[in-house]
């Protein structure tokens, strides 16, 4: 079973839920927040790099190139500029679609690999896979995509999604059996939750909501969920103890025993 833990708004406790749920159920965690992976800060597994992630980029053979501009005209990302006797290529704009090589009639384009990220793996009591996007790279989705190839459907796979409602978050939840949307009971939390709900509904994925830091803010998130018939799976109260454990990178199911049971029940409920 694949469960994605997502949240429209960042910093509302997505990784906390993913990690605690994984520890309570013995699931494998996939940290798909490849821009800022945090799950292993709580798991402290010794990670090994297992793969590099590459994007295919064009390499131009200026001896064969006639500077006809066909490639630049095709490229919808404006990654190629053709000068009278030179080519400028902007790798950070290139999607790696390979179209320029296909349109080139003069066989002047080959493809080369450019590294944009890495995949890590490690295991102690918990098994974790993690993607990491290189600094300065814009495209997180190819890293997420490659990371997701390791997802084992037979066991319990928990995907820690990146925050927001953009393409990296959507790429992560694609193909999941269930999505847990984590939010906080504030106007910001509610606003971003509504967008996230629109998305999971559009993709027809069963989902439920966890309200973290319950007790701060107001009751508008609860009212919204009740009004929309959305199940509130769990409420995690705001507590200084939980916040402090979080700041130190300690998953709170390890220190507060009754929570382990609650996370097991959570899994039973969504299974």
């Amino acid at each position, binding site marked *: 079973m694949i469960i994605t833990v997502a949240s429209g708004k960042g910093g*509302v406790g997505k990784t906390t839920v993913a990690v605690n749920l994984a520890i309570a159920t013995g699931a494998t965690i996939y940290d798909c927040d490849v821009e800022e992976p945090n799950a292993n*800060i709580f798991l402290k597994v010794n990670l090994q790099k297992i793969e590099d992630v590459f994007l295919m980029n064009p390499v131009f053979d200026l001896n064969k190139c006639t500077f006809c501009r066909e490639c630049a005209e095709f490229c919808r990302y404006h990654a190629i500029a053709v000068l009278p006797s030179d080519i400028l290529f902007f790798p950070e704009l290139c999607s790696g679609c*390979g179209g320029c090589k296909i349109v080139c009639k003069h066989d002047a384009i080959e493809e080369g690999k450019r590294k944009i990220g890495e995949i890590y793996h490690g295991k102690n009591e918990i098994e974790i896979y993690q993607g990491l996007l290189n600094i300065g790279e814009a495209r997180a989705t190819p890293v997420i995509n490659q990371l997701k190839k390791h997802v084992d459907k037979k066991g319990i796979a928990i995907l820690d999604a*990146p925050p*927001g409602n953009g393409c990296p978050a959507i790429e992560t939840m694609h193909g999941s059996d269930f999505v847990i949307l984590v939010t906080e009971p*504030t106007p910001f939390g509610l606003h971003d939750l509504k967008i996230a709900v629109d998305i999971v509904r559009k993709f027809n994925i069963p989902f439920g909501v966890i309200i973290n830091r319950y007790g701060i803010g107001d009751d508008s998130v609860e009212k919204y969920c009740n009004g929309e018939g959305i199940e509130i799976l769990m409420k995690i109260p705001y507590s200084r103890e939980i916040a402090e454990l979080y700041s130190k*990178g300690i998953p709170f199911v390890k220190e507060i025993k009754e929570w382990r049971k609650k996370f097991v029940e959570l899994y039973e409920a969504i299974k």
Partner: protein
Amino acid sequence: MKQIVVASGKGGTGKTSIVASFASLTKAVFTDCDVDAPNLHLILKPEIIEKIPYEGMEVAEINEEECIKCGACQKACRFGAIENFMVTEEKCEGCGVCMLVCPVNAIEMKKRVNGYVHVANTRFGEFVYGLLIPGEEASGKLVALVRQKAKEIAERKDKNLIIIDAPAGIGCPVIASLSGTDLAVIIAEPTMAAIHDMERILEVAEHFKVKAVVCINKYDINEEMTKKIEEYCRERGIEIIGKIPFNRKFTEAMVKGKNIVEYDKELADLMKEIWKKVEDMISQK
């Protein structure tokens, strides 16, 4: 004209609350570039003057009647967006390769509206923000459009400052928010996760040659970690422009749709001090 971006790497460190408070302290054009989850408008309460549709990447469409099911498009698409001779729209990057390889011209690239740029007035002045239609792609380009609009307005209204609320992360919309700015204010939080993320966003700022300073929010939830941030910054010559305590009044103000300067006198004084430092830094440049 100067541009300041407020970023954090990790989400939820209080970036938007801090940007909202700056709105009370300076005359600038404000922008929210967190286009897939914008929040600043909830405090600034904009009166929208103009809503500009944004067309991002096109998306492939296969004409069922003309398709001969040869599979050429499926093989050529590097993004796995075509399955069973159908396009999965949210995976399509709009590259146009399928259209190029289709032997019977059964594929067309369709334009579509991916989101909107809102130009608005608020009780603090001009505000530009982007909003992506849920599930749509290409947020980096929408960010660029928001910034371009903000620039036009600043020029027209003779304002010499733009303040940008950036999204979380370090990828495409963050790079689009950060590149070409004069100063990045990084909002950190004394937790292990936030420190890790702060280090990554500082590297991104350095990569794009944007000067960065750090502001520590909720510094008293773990003073030991706060010391670590201070040490890290000192070693690298990064200035810490302020430390904000954890205070429920930030959430209370948010619930009331106000910024903290409007809501609490004491915290307002602190925010003024922090803003003063930011102002000094950009006028030095």
